[in-house]
Structure formats: structure tokens, C-alpha cells
């Protein structure tokens, strides 16, 4: 528990840095939001009025103080494009991204870990080669291409998948928000049909992300397992007559998990922010596409909100990984 507290304390300077940098970065972006917001037909006077309304006429330090004050009140400003507060937009869209990312990651881990372990126990075998070819192909294809390919095959040609139009098809209504994950909420509120519909929408984008994330996980698992399997203590365990399953899972796998866990954290945060393309292809209402649209429209507030949320998630994620590391490896616990 002390470890968790210390880790959180260490994260604070990082978050402060993020606040400052996002503020400055957004002010440095090209484009005049006041002019954009006022529209092409606006007079100079109208633009100036809007500038005053947005607080853009003040000095940078002043703007920064207002910005920090608003942050403290949980106010991330209003999106000029959606007309809603950034906080409510993010609350609505973040679960969509999280649901998709977690599903994709779970899928990738579910496939990559067994493949990596299996490949490591039989290096040079056909399964090892197949695994290498498949994972390399997965990572070489850009995600939007994999996504389009899947849509083409499973929606257009085979008709197995529903239209790639967001989290639910037009005829289903969203379940009451509990966790924000449609699949879980639908089950919690007793709507199995809706849950099924949500899962069907989720499959293709999740597979798209999963295929992309699989390669590094499988490779790392294989490499880590190979390293551990040739170590002295595995030889001891085998000489002590422990069953091959015990040696493989209790002894080797847990040791090999250390680098894999680190990698998983990186992949997760990467996927969460970088799946804009997947969100675009599948019209998925996530935060990635939200931020991208705002950025194109010179809409500061959502971009700032997005970066802040991502940074916070990143910090929490690293914390979770450190804790997990401590659970797996006693040596980390001592050092802390």
C-alpha cells in the first residue's frame, strides 16, 4: 500500500507538466479559434467579441490561471463543435474507447500468450514458424487496412457482421449507463439481446486492434519464455522431477511474465490513443476520433481534455503495472 501511495505522489509532477504543456501547445497551434467559431461571414467586430468571450484577449499567464482554476472545478471548457461541455463529451466517449481497447487487448493477449509459450517450447517447429508469419503479417498491415479488409469480407461479402456504424445498430437503444460499457451495461440491466447486438458491433473493430497488438506480445512472450526456459533454476526444477506442466507454468511462465507485463502497459496506452483509425473505419464514437475532429477544427478545449485524460490514464496504468510487478516479483517489493 505504501508503494502505491509513493507511486501516486511521484506521478503528480508528471501530471502538472502535462497540464502546462497541453496549455502551451494548444495556444501554439495554428488557426484562430475565434475566427473559426465566428464563421466565414463574421465581421472583425464579431470576431473580437467572441475572442473576449473566450478569454483569448488576455495575456498567456492570465489565461493559464483561468485554465487551472477551471480544471480544479472539473470544468474542461466547452467544445465549440459539439456545443457540449468537454467533460460530458469525454464521459460519453471514453468508455467507448476503453471498451474497444480492452476487448482488442484481451483478444490479443488471449491468442498471443499461448502462441508465444507454445512457440518457445518448440523453437524451430512448424507452429513456431506459423506463429511468426501470422504475427508479422498482422503488424505489417496498417490497422485501417485490416479494418477495411475485415469489413469487406465479413460485412460486404459474407454478411456475418453488422454494418460498421458505431456501438449499436440503429434499431437498438443504448442500455442505461452504469459502467459505460454497452455489453456489460446491457447484461446488468437484463437486456441480453442488446448485449448481443453490442458484442456483434464490437467484434470486428476489436479483432482489428487485436491483430495489430498480437505480434509484439507473442514475440515478447516467446523471447522471454526461451530465456527463462534455458535458465539454471528451470534445470533444477526439472532435475527435481517437477511435472513438465508445473515447470512450464509455475516456474517458467511467471518469470517470463515480467517483461510481458511491461509491454502490455505500453501497448494498452498506445492502443487507447492511437486507435483513431479504427474508430474512423467503424464509426466508433471514441475519444480518439473526437480529439482528431476537434484538432482539425482548431477547437482547443476538447484536445486539451483529451490529452489530460490520456495522461491521467497513462499514469494510473503505470501505477497498476508497478503494483502488478510487485505482485509477480518479490525483488521489486524490496527495492520500493
Amino acid at each position: 500500500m505504501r508503494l502505491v501511495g509513493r507511486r501516486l505522489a511521484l506521478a503528480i509532477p508528471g501530471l502538472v507538466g502535462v497540464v502546462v504543456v497541453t496549455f502551451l501547445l494548444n495556444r501554439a497551434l495554428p488557426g484562430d479559434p475565434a475566427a473559426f467559431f465566428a464563421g466565414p461571414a463574421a465581421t472583425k467586430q464579431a470576431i473580437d467579441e467572441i475572442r473576449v468571450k473566450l478569454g483569448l484577449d488576455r495575456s498567456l499567464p492570465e489565461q493559464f490561471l483561468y485554465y487551472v482554476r477551471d480544471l480544479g472545478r472539473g470544468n474542461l471548457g466547452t467544445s465549440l463543435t459539439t456545443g457540449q461541455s468537454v467533460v460530458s463529451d469525454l464521459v460519453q466517449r471514453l468508455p467507448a474507447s476503453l471498451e474497444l481497447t480492452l476487448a482488442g487487448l484481451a483478444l490479443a493477449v488471449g491468442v498471443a500468450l499461448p502462441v508465444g509459450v507454445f512457440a518457445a517450447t518448440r523453437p524451430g517447429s512448424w507452429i513456431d514458424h506459423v506463429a511468426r508469419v501470422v504475427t508479422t503479417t498482422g503488424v505489417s498491415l496498417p490497422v485501417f487496412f485490416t479494418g477495411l479488409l475485415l469489413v469487406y469480407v465479413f460485412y460486404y461479402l459474407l454478411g456475418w457482421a453488422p454494418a460498421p456504424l458505431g456501438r449499436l445498430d440503429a434499431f437498438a437503444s443504448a442500455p442505461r449507463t452504469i459502467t459505460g460499457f454497452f455489453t456489460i451495461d446491457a447484461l446488468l440491466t437484463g437486456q441480453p439481446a442488446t448485449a448481443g447486438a453490442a458484442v456483434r458491433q464490437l467484434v470486428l473493430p476489436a479483432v482489428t486492434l487485436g491483430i495489430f497488438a498480437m505480434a509484439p506480445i507473442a514475440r515478447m512472450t516467446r523471447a522471454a519464455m526461451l530465456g527463462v526456459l534455458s535458465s539454471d533454476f528451470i534445470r533444477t526444477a526439472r532435475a527435481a522431477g517437477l511435472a513438465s506442466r508445473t515447470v512450464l507454468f509455475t516456474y517458467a511462465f511467471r518469470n517470463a511474465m515480467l517483461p510481458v507485463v511491461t509491454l502490455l502497459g505500453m501497448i494498452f496506452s498506445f492502443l487507447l490513443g492511437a486507435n483513431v483509425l479504427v474508430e474512423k473505419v467503424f464509426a466508433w464514437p471514441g475519444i480518439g476520433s473526437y480529439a482528431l475532429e476537434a484538432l482539425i477544427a482548431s477547437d482547443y478545449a476538447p484536445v486539451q481534455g483529451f490529452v489530460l485524460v490520456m495522461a491521467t490514464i497513462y499514469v494510473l496504468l503505470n501505477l497498476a503495472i508497478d503494483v502488478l510487478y510487485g505482485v509477480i516479483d518479490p525483488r521489486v517489493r524490496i527495492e520500493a
Partner: protein
Amino acid sequence: MCVEFRTRHGVVRALEEVRFIVRRGETVGIVGESGSGKSVTAYALMGILDPAARVTDGRAVFGGLDLLHASRQELEAYRGRELAMIFQSPRTALNPIRTVGRQIEDVLLRHQTVPRAKVRDRVIELLTLVQIPDPERRARAYPFEMSGGMCQRVMIALAIAASPSLLVADEPTTGLDVTTQAAILDLLDELARTTGMATVLISHDLGLIAERCDRIVVMHAGHVVEEAPARAMFAGPRHPYTARLLASTPRVGAKLAELVPIPGGVPDLRAELPPCRYRARCERAVAECDEPPLPRTQVAPGHLVACRRPL
């Protein structure tokens, strides 16, 4: 028994017709320079050779089971319970992220030599047996929290956990101070006496071997060059290599100048070798040494020498 390693630079014939017998309760010492095949012999017995190694010929019969040709299940059931091994470098030979108590428990649970409820008590008993102070606390420690000597003792506790009939100890006391070394070896002696455990003690420490072993097997470059009762071996070595080995070992009362190094090194086992692999280093070698086969002569009861011109 013959073992080959296939390497990038050709086939290494690591062991060639290595043969010796270990009887119940007996301690057999294997000596030789680094690279003479001592450890490979041990690994082959345990069935834990590197994947690049191949047992090309021979048998290792243990209680009616040929270890070299047994199925994986048979071997797994034998290892740890009947056959156990103590490794060198105890620090890396233990699982770094599992408490030592749990690691010993794993072995006990696997072989079910004690009832499940008694496993914890047995762990403490074993740790006490190998003279680890405060065993209750130590059982909950991780290897990195212990000294090398402590890890070595845990290693030994792990090996003798299921009371094996044959213990292969590869340099079991390297890195331990002299008193601990003596205590550990006394413990192994006692186990051999009380449980009839046979021990194969691998070491390059001739003093230790002389003191602890009933019989001695001398290895050179993957060959057994001489096998004899300990007393006979030290009284009158018959193979030139053994004689050299003894002469190069410090003794009490001997002067430094009397120590004679053995000329040359272990030959490259990838090359075509003469029948006697000591040929190039031997001062007694004659032309007939190049004619196969290498003889194995019994010069006295239980005293075998692989040499055409024994001393």
C-alpha cells in the same frame, strides 16, 4: 554411455564409452579437469542434457530402468524421488521469485513422500537438517535474500527432500567456507549411511574426493581413464594422467616447487582424435598408442585403467 553435442562448428563427442557402477550406500567421486565431461555425465544421468546433445549409445541402468531410454513420464517420476541432483552456482539454480520453502514444498507435493498436512513440517525439518538457522523464517525468504552458502544448503535440502536413492552432487560445496563444507559433506555421509543413498560426488578438489569417496572415477576429455578404490588410487595411480593430476594437487608438507602442472590442455573434441585422448599430453606415449582400440585393463581387483602403458 556416449554423448554427442551438435554445434555450429561440428559434432563434439563429449562422452565416449563412459562406464562406471555406483552401488547402494556408496560414494563415488568423479574427478577431472574442467571440460573433462564430469557435468555432462551427470546431466545425461538425470536426463536434463541440453537439446543439442544426443545420447548416441549406451545405457544407464538404475533399479532396472534404463534412464537414457526411459519415457518422459517415467523419468519425471524418477527424478527428484529416486535420483536427485545438487547443482553448482546455487544462486541462479533456485527460482528467484518463489520462496525457498515453496520450492521445497513443490518437490514434496510432487513426489508425495509425506502426507500433504505434514509438508510444511517436513520443509522446516529439511532446512534444520542442512543447518539453516531460524528455518521458519528462512522458509519464507526468497533466494535473493540469502547468501550463496545459504542458497547452496537450500539446494541440498531440495535435493534430499524426497530421500532419493542416488544423489548426484556437482561441486556441492564450491563457494562455501571450510566449516560449512565439512558440515554439508558430513550430512551427505550420514544420509548415505542411514538411508543407503548412493552418491556421485563431482569435484575437481582431489582432497575432498580422497576424504569422502569409496571409489574414484578419473575422467579426461570425455573418457574414463582410471577407476579404482580411493585408497588404491592415491597409493598408486596407474594412468599417467591420474599420476599427473595427483602431482599437481597441493598437499600438506609439500613445497610449492613440487607441484607439477599437466602439460597442454583438454584436446578439441571436434577433431579426429587418437583412441587415447591423452596421447598428445602423455610423456609415456609410444607409436602403438595410436592403434585402436583403447584397452581397458584390470590391473588389480576393482582397479581399471584405460592405457596401453600403465604405470
